[in-house]
């Protein structure tokens, strides 16, 4: 896959999404299902990295770009991720005229509804490989409960998940 094609994948994912993890389903379909440029584990690692460093959660696309094609992939993702938000300038100008129109609000709601369903589909795809490993399912369940109830920052939860994985490794539990 050449640089331009990869850039267009990231641009499309960015243009057709709004919000941090919203490009995830489209990137998963284009880069894993259709082109096999990276594996599900790389994809999940990219998501974890997106939660670790500074900046928006959506920066995970940069890691996906790197996993897919090294530095050129990173650059393709960087440009594809950065360009669409500049459309915001046109929106600022049109804001008072359009933002309160019912059909625009409805359209935004519709895209958001599809994003919620798609995010759930992505989470489901992460769970499928874990189904044979009860210990990892337990980590998932506990993490979900903790995240939903406490609204805690995800970074320590990720760190604890990683430590739990290491502890399971040393106790001889198979994680693959």
């Amino acid at each position: 896959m050449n640089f331009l094609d990869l850039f267009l994948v990231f641009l499309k994912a960015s243009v057709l999404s709004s919000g941090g993890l919203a490009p995830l389903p489209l990137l998963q379909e284009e880069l894993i299902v259709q082109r096999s440029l990276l594996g599900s584990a790389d994809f999940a690692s990219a998501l974890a990295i997106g939660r670790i460093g500074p900046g928006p959660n959506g920066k995970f696309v940069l890691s996906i770009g790197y996993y897919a094609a090294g530095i050129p992939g990173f650059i393709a993702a960087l440009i594809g991720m950065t360009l669409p938000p500049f459309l915001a300038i046109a929106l600022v100008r049109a804001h008072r005229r359009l933002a309160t129109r019912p059909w625009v609000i409805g359209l935004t709601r519709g895209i958001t509804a599809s994003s919620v369903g798609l995010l759930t589909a992505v989470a489901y795809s992460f769970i499928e490989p874990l189904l044979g490993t009860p210990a990892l399912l337990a980590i998932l369940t506990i993490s979900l409960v903790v995240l939903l109830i406490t609204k805690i920052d995800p970074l320590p939860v990720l760190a604890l998940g990683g430590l739990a994985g290491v502890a399971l490794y040393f106790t001889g539990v198979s994680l693959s």
Partner: protein
Amino acid sequence: MHAGEIGVLIHDVPLPQLALAFAKISVHGWGGGSGTIYTMQNELVRRGWITSAQFGLDFGISRIPPGINLIALAVILGYRLNGPKGSVVSGVAFVLPFSLITLVLTMGFVTVTSNPIGGAAVHGAVAVTAALTFALAFETAQSWVPWQERRVASLMSVYIVASFVLVALLHMSVVFVILGGGVAGAALFRPPEGGPLL
């Protein structure tokens, strides 16, 4: 024009100062989107460049365009503070530092995960990532579905379930599901006449 009015553009913040402020926000906003939003508001209000109300308005607008909302927010704030040049400077100054840090973290991650212990840590982190994705979907639905509008909320809930089934189980194209959501939304998810708009 003065900073006290919501929606008023201020075109007097020097570009080097703008670049420095957004670069600082970029490297200081650890902990995901909410941490960065907090840092951004704190930094710009502390400098006296905008008010909290102006930040709130720009944050709302930044949710509309495609792509990463926080980049759009940096672009909008830059536009407010120094017009088109300001939007480019703030956007680039915000994106580059966290992107380079992400690149370094990714390269380090690849090295770490090439040994069994690092791989085990990733397995644990992947389980948490699945939980994070579920939690995000849940929280997005909580905050974006207008639960007080029962008819619209019901229709949106149906579309959420349909999107999941179409993609996860029937492997339908994600693009069609998103575009379908937009079309269905424009036709069916509108607020009632005379009701609250947002």
